[in-house]
């Protein structure tokens, strides 16, 4: 909420349009938000770069150069068959981004759909949906993944669908009562009294008010997708061995942890940082997009100065 009208020197516009991107600035000012933003940006950028360039061909086996220590030209060393670990990590980032985004999209669609069905429809529909959600929530992601891979075989899509379904249900479970609560609010009634149709009301008043809960759940779902990809690939349900993946790399290197402990560090670190970054980004986003939690110095100063007054 600052006057950033440097571009328009003409008559001083009395109304200060709130920048649509103001929340990004608030996010950046939060240390958690900044950390999350940087980590997610680095991972996304790495995945993008790995699409057309990696220092070495990640699948190129070079037995003469196996278990090289970190140094030049293999910055993070090589694995047991002489593959460059940095290149493998970069290529694996693509898999990670693909899985995290895919699972996030599916979880969002399933979650919002189930939550809306469970909150806004006729009583018998929403109660049945609530029961269905309660049943589905009993299935852990791993079990869903095993069931899917038993039918369609192991692939990255198994991970995406398993996490997407598992967390979609989770999102629905948490978002539904929030939607119900907001639905009882006077401002939703006031919205209808202003002539909003139910769908306009959903978009303008209901969804924005459940967004904080949803964002935290979504960022968690994406973080779990990264972990699940690593875990499921490690177990053999996820990425096929030909596909570069952090989980597969960890599984391979982990067998030699006593001999070459340093090499296991890199995929482990990559997974940990990405998951942490996603979680912190979700936290920061929730805080930055909620005007009532605004932490900017300007807002707190105003809040402190704000004196309810009699106006005439």
């Amino acid at each position, binding site marked *: *909420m600052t006057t950033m009208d440097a571009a328009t020197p003409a008559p001083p516009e*009395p*109304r*200060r*349009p*709130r920048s649509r991107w103001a929340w990004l600035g608030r996010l950046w000012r939060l240390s958690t938000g900044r950390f999350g933003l940087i980590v997610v940006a680095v991972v996304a950028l790495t995945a993008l770069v790995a699409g057309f360039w990696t220092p070495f061909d990640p699948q190129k086996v070079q037995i003469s150069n196996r278990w090289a220590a970190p140094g030049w030209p293999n910055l993070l060393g090589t694995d047991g068959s002489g593959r460059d670990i940095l290149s493998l990590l970069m290529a694996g980032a693509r898999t990670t981004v693909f899985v995290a985004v895919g699972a996030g999209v599916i979880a969002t669609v399933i979650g919002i759909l189930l939550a809306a069905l469970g909150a806004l429809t006729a*009583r018998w529909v929403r109660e049945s949906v609530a029961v269905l959600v309660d049943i589905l929530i009993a299935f852990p992601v791993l079990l869903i993944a095993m069931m899917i891979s038993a039918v369609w075989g192991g692939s990255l899509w198994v991970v995406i669908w398993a996490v997407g379904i598992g967390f979609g249900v989770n999102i629905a479970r948490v978002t539904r009562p929030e939607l119900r609560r907001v639905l009882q*609010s*006077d*401002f939703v*009634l*006031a*919205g*209808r*009294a*202003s*002539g*909003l*149709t*139910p769908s*306009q009301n959903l978009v*303008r*008043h209901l969804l*924005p*008010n459940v967004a904080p809960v949803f964002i935290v759940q979504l960022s968690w779902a994406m973080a779990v997708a990264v972990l699940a990809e690593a875990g499921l690939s490690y177990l053999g349900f996820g990425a096929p061995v030909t596909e570069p993946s952090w989980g597969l790399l960890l599984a391979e290197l982990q067998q030699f942890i006593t001999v070459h402990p340093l090499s296991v560090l890199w995929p482990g670190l990559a997974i940990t940082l990405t998951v942490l970054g996603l979680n912190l980004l979700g936290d920061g986003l929730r805080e930055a997009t*909620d*005007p*009532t939690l605004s932490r900017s110095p300007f807002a707190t100063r*105003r*809040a402190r100065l*704000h004196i*309810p*007054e*009699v*106006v*005439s």
Partner: protein
Amino acid sequence: MSLEVQDLTIDIGERRVVDGVSFEVPDGARVGLIGESGSGKSLTALAILGLLPDGAHAGGSIRWNGREILGLPDRELAQLRGDEIGIVFQEPRTALNPIRTVGRQIAESVRIHEGLGRREAAARAVAEAARVALPDPERIVARFPHQLSGGQRQRVAIAMALACRPRLLIADEPTTALDVTIQAEILELLLSLVKDDGMSLVFITHDLAVLSQIATHGVVLEDGRVVEQAPVSHLLTAPQSAVTQGLLRDATATLWRPGGIA
């Protein structure tokens, strides 16, 4: 542009909470619905706009401008709401969306009913904020509800209800949640706006003193039934029913300004 409510009944489940309420609001009239809590006055107001909660069913007849609006499909009622009939609720703290700026909420009905774009709507919001005497309207439209005082929020709610210049304003205890000085200001504001626009008013309250300041005609409700209908001056000087006499005793105990502020 008159409102005629005839034999209105509202059932929640098996219970009849409003039973045969009839009253009329001619064009430009200011009618008060008065009664203790639970007498069905708020539900009557919601029924006029078709905003009854789930599980409540209305029967009888509500005619707006000669047209039956009870039982109209929601889509058609939505065109009336905010455009021809506006409503102000009791609790200004919860009647505003906490995460949208005040200006966007004021301009909401204008954008729907008059199809204004984002820019025109923002300019209109400033004008409407000025009209309800909000201080510093250019700046206040960019604020969020939690940054406003209770009285200011109620002014925002009034601006929202009146943005499209409706022909009928329903005010559901708009001053109950406010303290006495601000209550008087809000009443004064409502009265002057209603008179300026020549619109009709249905004012709901449990306080006869408040009613006497704003309405000319009173409909006294008890347990969902009309027990007395008379000009406000009659209610004050010659109350017929026991309910009205009780309300009159309560009113004289609170703030009392004979003659009102009109």
